[in-house]
């Protein structure tokens, strides 16, 4: 019988309780991408993770929006054991990624907008 679901244990993937490395985030992104490309469901298990930074989430999860839609991800990607106090980080990274990949070229503000020049 073929497997339909894989679990990536972040504690194991990052070798500890801190998800703070962008290179770890990228490596996990590639694993998720490979699995999703094969129509597998992916579970990201954050058990025992005590520290997460947004740069890790941008690399690991945000990058998925370059290839997959929200519908795809809601269907095939599951999160487990995310601490309540860390949920806002995920929501921030997801919101940012959706905005970014909607139109990357006009994502940044111009210098005139920032400085208030006409």
């Amino acid at each position, binding site marked *: 019988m073929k497997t339909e679901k894989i679990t990536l244990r972040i504690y194991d993937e990052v*070798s*500890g309780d*801190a998800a*703070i*490395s*962008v*290179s770890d985030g*990228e490596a996990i992104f590639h694993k998720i991408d490979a699995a999703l490309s094969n129509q597998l469901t992916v579970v990201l298990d954050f058990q025992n993770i*005590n*520290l*997460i*930074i*947004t*740069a*890790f989430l*941008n*690399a690991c999860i*945000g*990058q998925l*929006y*370059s290839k997959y839609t*929200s519908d795809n*991800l*809601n269907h095939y*990607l599951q*999160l487990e054991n*995310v601490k*309540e*106090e860390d*949920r*806002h*980080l*995920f*929501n*921030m*990274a*997801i919101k*940012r*990624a959706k*905005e*970014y*990949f909607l139109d*990357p070229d006009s*994502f*940044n*503000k*111009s*210098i005139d*907008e*920032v*400085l208030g020049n006409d």
Partner: protein
Amino acid sequence: MKNFRVNTNISSDFNGYNYLSTLNHQLRQLKSEQIQLDFSGNNWFEANLCAVLGAILYEAAQDFNDISIINLQPAQKNIFSRNHFLASFGGNKIADYNDTTIKYRRNRLSDDKLIKEFLMTELINKPDFPKLSIPAKKEIIRSIFEIYSNAMLHGDCKDVYSCGQFYPNKTPPRIDFSIVDMGKTIRRNVTEFLGTNMSGVEAIKWALSDNNTTKPRDKNIPGGLGFNLIQKFVKMNKGKIQIVSSDGYWHFALGKEEYLTLDYPFPGTIVNLEFNLDDSSFYYLKEENNPKIIF
């Protein structure tokens, strides 16, 4: 022999950074010289700024200059030995019996696992501050790692320098932590990204504005969240953030910000974070009405 006297007291403020960027400018004119940095006229040099001084001296040494630090006051010599700064410039290192330093380090960026291990050990095993809540402590550590990853992503350099100091006897008690890279400045990154020439201050303003990021398009990774998050936390914690990059200086404390221009550009980026350790807040910075994560 060239002698540079550190006559003024050096704190983490505009004058301190202006002095250090001027010193850097002077040292970078020299090649194959014996250089003495003379502290006989100096009574105060904030230990976290060893990260900045270390970066400046290391770069100057790359031009075959022989650098020595002389006439440190006993208390300064003690702290510069405890935080291992002097060990990089011909001095000794001694045990940090007060456990108030976060050691000076020049980290190879390629060793990100080692950096993580080092900082976790240095930050987590410090004495507990009774009024500092666990969520506040976690946000402090998270902020420091966000800045580190920022330097790795944007600095385009080999090394990052860091040093921190706990000030338990100040009111309120605080920790200062400085991270320095001598890579591409924010000004250069933003100028290249937008194709528009601008001052250091203008570039910092642009980089701090919501959404903006100079992360390379080919990386395909969205960015620009870390500073936003740190700024929110620092505001609640009543701490401060400073950024020096090229000739731009930005200071944020108690909800107010200040932009100034340095006399000489600093050839990299300094980020200094100051956190208030008298913080019993139990905040999570969470979105109250949307705890569920939806892709």
